[in-house]
């Protein structure tokens, strides 16, 4: 199954990415420069971190719509803990990460304990967490972070943006977990048939709790990098991020019904969306045109992939 899908959806996606790279390089001179591509990597970081864990969430058959709001909430908590409460910045970062993780855990508890469908549970907390962020921030942005903090979002290591190292680390880590560990297997089993997983002694609820908490953690980590990149904290940060992340995951071939999906796919999905956004705008396409292009690519890729993957009966 895994081998097969690498030959199928992920391959198709890879070819589409290559095609997009070639076409965009021809259309826009500035596109295929190292500087531009690395810079695009910076923009890609926040949504990537969220999308990697979102892959796990969707593979279990769930969804997490609250990640954008968790990002906003964590960013505000970071700013407030540092500036208003006077905590040292490293401690404030820890507080922000904990709040994000707890917010994700809370999603998991609503979903597993009270059997609320993930779509509804996280739709509710999407509003709840955003409301909290706005309430705490009082619509004021927070600035003036110390210079060392910008290393995360604006600095580089060995010529490559700092956050890209972080993304690379988490991509490898999540890909490894999903493919090679019992946790990954449990994730697939839950998504493909939750009852059978439970009857097989798999700790279904515990696994889900962990995944939603990880999703919250990823969103708060994204928040910290985001704040570092733009040097400021605002309560509307990360609005709509959930849709970008879900789009990338689904474009990557993860079934919205659960049970199927890979980190490799999500990775290509993320890259494809970002190069389309950037390349098209460099080629002079307006933003509405870019959105249309992204929508079309999503539909086309899934159509082509379905064509090749249509299951024969037997």
């Amino acid at each position: 199954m895994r081998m097969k899908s690498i030959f199928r959806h992920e391959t198709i996606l890879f070819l589409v990415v290559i095609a997009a790279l070639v076409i965009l390089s021809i259309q826009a001179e500035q596109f295929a420069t190292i500087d531009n591509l690395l810079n695009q990597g910076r923009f890609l970081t926040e949504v990537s971190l969220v999308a990697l864990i979102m892959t796990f969430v969707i593979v279990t058959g769930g969804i997490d719509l609250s990640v954008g709001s968790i990002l906003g909430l964590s960013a505000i908590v970071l700013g407030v803990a540092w500036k208003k409460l006077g905590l040292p910045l490293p401690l404030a970062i820890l507080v922000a990460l904990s709040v994000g993780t707890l917010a994700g855990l809370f999603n998991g508890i609503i979903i597993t304990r009270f059997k609320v469908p993930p779509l509804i549970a996280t739709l509710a907390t999407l509003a709840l967490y955003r409301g909290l962020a706005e309430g705490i921030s009082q619509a004021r942005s927070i600035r003036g972070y110390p210079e060392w903090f910008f290393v995360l979002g604006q600095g580089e290591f060995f010529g490559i943006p700092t956050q890209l190292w972080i993304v690379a680390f988490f991509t490898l880590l999540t890909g490894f977990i999903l493919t090679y560990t019992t946790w990954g297997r449990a994730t697939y089993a839950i998504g493909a048939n939750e009852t059978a997983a439970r009857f097989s002694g798999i700790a279904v609820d515990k696994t889900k709790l962990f995944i939603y908490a990880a999703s919250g953690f990823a969103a708060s980590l994204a928040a910290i990098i985001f704040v570092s990149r733009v040097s400021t904290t605002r309560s509307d940060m990360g609005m709509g991020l959930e849709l970008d992340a879900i789009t990338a995951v689904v474009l990557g071939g993860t079934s919205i019904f659960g049970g199927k999906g890979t980190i490799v796919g999500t990775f290509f999905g993320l890259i494809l969306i970002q190069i389309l956004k950037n390349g098209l705008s460099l080629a002079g396409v307006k933003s509405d045109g870019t959105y249309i292009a992204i929508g079309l690519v999503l539909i086309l890729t899934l159509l082509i992939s379905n064509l090749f993957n249509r299951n024969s009966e037997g």
Partner: protein
Amino acid sequence: MAKFLMEKINRDVTLKIKNATKSFAGVTVLNNVSFDLYRGEVHSLLGENGAGKSTLIKILSGVHKPDQGKVILENKEFVFNSPKEAFKNGIATVYQELLVFPELTVAENIFLGHTPKTKIGLIDWKKIKADSRKILDSLDSHDLDVNARVGSLSVANRQRVEIAKALSQKTKVLIMDEPTAALADTDVKKLITVVKRLREQGVSILYVSHKMPEIFELSDKVSVLRDGNHVGTFNIKDVSEDLLVSKMVGRPVDKLYPISKGKFGKPILEVNNFTDGLRFKQVSFKLKRGEILGIAGVVGSGRSELAQSIFGIKPSKGGSIKIDEKEVSIKKPKDARNLGIAYIPEDRGTQGLVKEMKISHNVSMANLDREANGILIIFKKEMQNAINAIKKLGIRARNALQLVRQLSGGNQQKVVIAKWLQTEPRILIMDEPTRGIDVGAKSEIHQLMRNLADEGLAILMISSELPEVLGMSDRVLVMNNGTITKEFSKEHATPENVGSIMTQKVKETA
């Protein structure tokens, strides 16, 4: 007069299947199959899982198109493009998995897709309800409320709704795919009456079942398929059960149950006053090493709930479980597994297997954490275990990487068993171990159970098939309405004794 008419009618061919051939992905699943279905006859279709019955049914009901061959309905050749088209032309199908809509009422379900309209084009509710009532009455289902939500009905009643739906249009051919697989004995009897009544009304019935007694009770003719080929069509009067089985399997089958050595060890599982406060109460029994203890009871007697509470899937409210004379606490399936209990659930499709996964992944599922290196899956070991299981249990599959959904029912059940044997259990609970499985695989599973017991495994077997309970068990407990009402030793467990206790003061089913 009536008799004369019947005989005349009987000679009319309603449906002709001519040289039907179908293959999927290069594998021929139906090869040049032809036979005739006469008006007002019950024609049984026999064959092991994978013999091509489902494919044939799907061709007749418009789900698949044949690669070659013809379907001739009343002298007119048809190629159905959709199930709806087949239905409109008078071929209705009642599938094993019922396709009713649980949120709709009985009447709404019956007329879904062809609702009668009033003059101004609104739905004619009066007519829908009246006609539904009429159809249900004709099926002897006077007690079924047309306004009831279908989701609230028993399986047997839901099936009656499906049959009523099939009859809500002028139906010439009714295809029934294992209609009794999920029914309790009393409901089977009712269904048989219904089918006989339909035959009297001139409907031709193509009846698929694994259960020999009902095939002999119902059928006029029987056609046997094996590996996609039509082995033959027989008048039911001219054949014996043994002959049919050997035609199906292609070899003589040992129909007898494997013999118990009658040697048991110490009690390993002791259940005392076990209660869930709802579906079963004050249940006590002991299970010995090497013993097969059968629990007989109708569907709804609390058997499965009891098993699932022992296994930690459903909560219990009182009583105790002892293993090796030590009281244990089981809160979740993993606790049970760690104590050496395995549970083969009654519904392999939803509870037993992840059908979209490979055989190897299913086989390892219950034991993966123990076989892993920390959290790392050892793929080599997983693969080797799967290959060994395929060999040991005789699972017929291309290889260990095949998706479970592509296997036949019997082989799927073997995968579930393999999964739990992987945990090296000492106590094996089997809930309906051979439901919906063909005779060949059934006798293999029975032999396997006896071999495991001889190796010292303690087996608790739940079954609604009385012959299976009586044939396999060393001791029989009868469960009725949530309590164990009687225990029989092997010698005293006769069909009459056990059957009468099983159905005593049965709750009303409607």
